[in-house]
Structure formats: structure tokens, C-alpha cells
């Protein structure tokens, strides 16, 4: 089929109209993606029978302005009134879901968790400490390394994730990406690590599989505590 003479110009114009100017940067795409996965984690907690899910910030419950963190930080930070979710299962320790929190690995080195679920008891220690304290990775029950890419992902991202895993003792750590990545999938499968691909709203089957995997994480948490 020949190319319609104005098609390329039409695409160029349509591209300009379709974009939301504040969401064109790579960092905005990644931050949004982390927030999307935050939602899937909460859906998984509900599916596993969480009897309470509250959205809050340091100062408010159900804030009218919900602020997601876009750069790695500490729970103690008061720079912004960052939002998070509280989850509770009957008779179990309360959990919190955060974006972009620094946690401490076994070596004492700090790592960033794009999305993490940790014990509230640990979060409170870090939030209320007079000095800046990072949560211990052993007190994180689920974490996600989130990658939103337009092109193929470089293998270095898989290697970095393996480095993160080697220094942390999180019960369930996932590498989650919006598209496929043969090399990383091969590497992580070979190493027996948790990963999911094609995680994007229209891919219902893939998203359901991830939600189920998160739900399994909560099931294991309930059994252990």
C-alpha cells in the first residue's frame, strides 16, 4: 500500500496533540508507572482479604492532595507530605506501601525500592527517629523494581537488580517492566528470580498474573506473622 502523502505530517500533528506536556519526560513515565504498580499491590492486598486499606500521609488520612515521591528518600523526610497506603490483615502486623524509599541492605549500603511494602512498626521507627534511619530490608515483605521503557531494556538493568537482591533479604522482590525484554528475562529466569513483563493496563492477562503474584506475597506474609 503506498504511503498517503500527508500521513507523516498527520502523525506529527497528532503526536503533538496527544501528549500531555507534563508527562513527556522519561522520569515522569517511570514515576507514573511506579504509581500504577502501587495500585496493583493494593488490589492484591484486597484480593487476599485485607480488612483495612487507608490512604494517608504523615499528617492526614485521605489527603485531598496525594503526593507520590519521585526521588529516593527517607521515611523521616518532611520535605513534602508524601502519601502512602496502610494495609491491615486480621490479627497481623500493619503494613505500609511506599514509593521511592531508601532501604538498608545487609552490607549497610542503601538501596532504592521503587515500590515497597514494609512493616509499619519498622516504618514508625524510621519516621519518628531523631536521626535519619533507613528501614532494614528484612522488614520489607515485598518490593518492586519498576521499569517503563519505550525501547528494549539494557541487560545492565537485570544485573543491577541481581546486585540489589544479593544485598537484601526481602521476602519477594519483583522486576516489573511494561514490555518484554528477552535478555533480562533469560537472565532472571536462569537465576530463579521474580519478574513480570508486559505490565500495562490493556494487558489484562499479564496484569492479573502480577496481581496474583503480589497476592501470594501477602498470603506468605499472613502465614509467617
Amino acid at each position, binding site marked *: 500500500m503506498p504511503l498517503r502523502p500527508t500521513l507523516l505530517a498527520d*502523525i506529527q500533528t*497528532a*503526536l*503533538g496533540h496527544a501528549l*500531555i506536556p507534563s508527562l*513527556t519526560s522519561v522520569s515522569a513515565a517511570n514515576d507514573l508507572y511506579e*504509581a500504577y504498580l502501587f*495500585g496493583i499491590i493494593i488490589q492484591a492486598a484486597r484480593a487476599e482479604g485485607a480488612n483495612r486499606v487507608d490512604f494517608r500521609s504523615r499528617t492526614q488520612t485521605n489527603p485531598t492532595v496525594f503526593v507520590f515521591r519521585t*526521588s529516593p528518600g527517607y521515611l523521616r523526610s518532611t520535605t513534602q507530605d508524601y502519601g502512602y497506603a496502610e494495609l491491615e490483615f486480621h490479627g497481623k502486623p500493619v503494613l505500609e506501601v511506599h514509593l521511592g524509599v531508601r532501604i538498608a541492605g545487609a552490607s549497610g549500603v542503601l538501596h532504592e525500592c521503587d515500590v515497597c511494602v514494609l512493616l509499619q512498626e519498622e516504618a514508625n521507627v524510621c519516621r519518628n527517629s531523631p536521626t535519619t534511619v533507613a528501614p532494614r530490608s528484612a522488614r520489607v515483605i515485598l518490593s518492586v523494581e519498576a521499569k517503563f521503557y519505550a*525501547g528494549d531494556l539494557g541487560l545492565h538493568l537485570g544485573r543491577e537488580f541481581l546486585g540489589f537482591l544479593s544485598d537484601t533479604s526481602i521476602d519477594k522482590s519483583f522486576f516489573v517492566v511494561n514490555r518484554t525484554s528477552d535478555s533480562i528475562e533469560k537472565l532472571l529466569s536462569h537465576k530463579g528470580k521474580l519478574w513480570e513483563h508486559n505490565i500495562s493496563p490493556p494487558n489484562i492477562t499479564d496484569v492479573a498474573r502480577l496481581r496474583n503474584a503480589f497476592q501470594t506475597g501477602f498470603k506468605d506474609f499472613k502465614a509467617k506473622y
Partner: protein
Amino acid sequence: MALSAGEIDAAYSALAQAAKQYGLEWVVEQVESQIALGRIRTGKVRAKEVPLRGTNDDEVERMSKGRPLKFTLSDNYSTQEKLEILIQALEHAVYGVWLTASAVSTFMKDNIPNLTVVEFLPEGISKKPFTVVDLEIRTKQQAVEHFQAFVRELKEAI
């Protein structure tokens, strides 16, 4: 009839230029990095097919008699494949981001009574803050669908 190599090159250049013009340089960078890497596969290569440098004649002889060995190989993408990679990347950056923003907005709105806005703020000044406004996302839906329709037309023409 499929597009000529010249038409494909022109389409690639036009789309890459448009992407850069609208702040999607990162998309073009990721695509060009993928194209430079090539399509990775594992395959068997007979050593005798590969001229060996820095080996003496005996070694060349020994290698040539060996069985094919497993290597990781990189194949160059064709011009058509390069254009397809760029189109797919633009779809992720436009449609994918819009869908993600829409999902975040809907989820937060459904879960927090009286929510007015979702903000994304850094700790410092290194990153630009942004907000997700439900109305803005919904008003872009038609424009996103137009873009998708034109992209589909281009994919059918390739």
C-alpha cells in the same frame, strides 16, 4: 506494495524528528540504542568460518576441524524493522503513558474521597514535579485515539 527503502528512511527521520520536537528525545535514544545493539540470538558458528587473528597456523588448523560452537550473535535490523521499533516505542510513550496516567488517576479517585489532585514531587530540585489531573487525561483521549489510528495506517503501509 510495501514502502521503498527511501520512503521508510524518510518516515523514520520524520517520526524521530517529531519525537524530539515534542520532548521525547529519550524515546529516540532508547530506540537508537536498541538498533545499535542489534537483534541478539544464540547460534552456532564454525570457527573455520571466522578468520582468526593472532593464532599460528597449527591453531587455525585445529579450530577448523572442531564442531560448531555456541556464540551470542547480533543481527542488524532491516530498515523496515527499525521503523517498526520506532513506531512501537512511540506508541509506548504516547498511548502507554496515557493509559498508565489514566489508570493511576482512576484508581486514586476511586479510593480517596474528595481527592483533588495527585502530585509527583521530588525531595529536592533535581527533578521536575508534575501533577495528574483527571480532566486533562480524559480530554486527551480523542487525540490519543487519532494518533493511534494514524500509526495503525502507517504500520499497514510498511
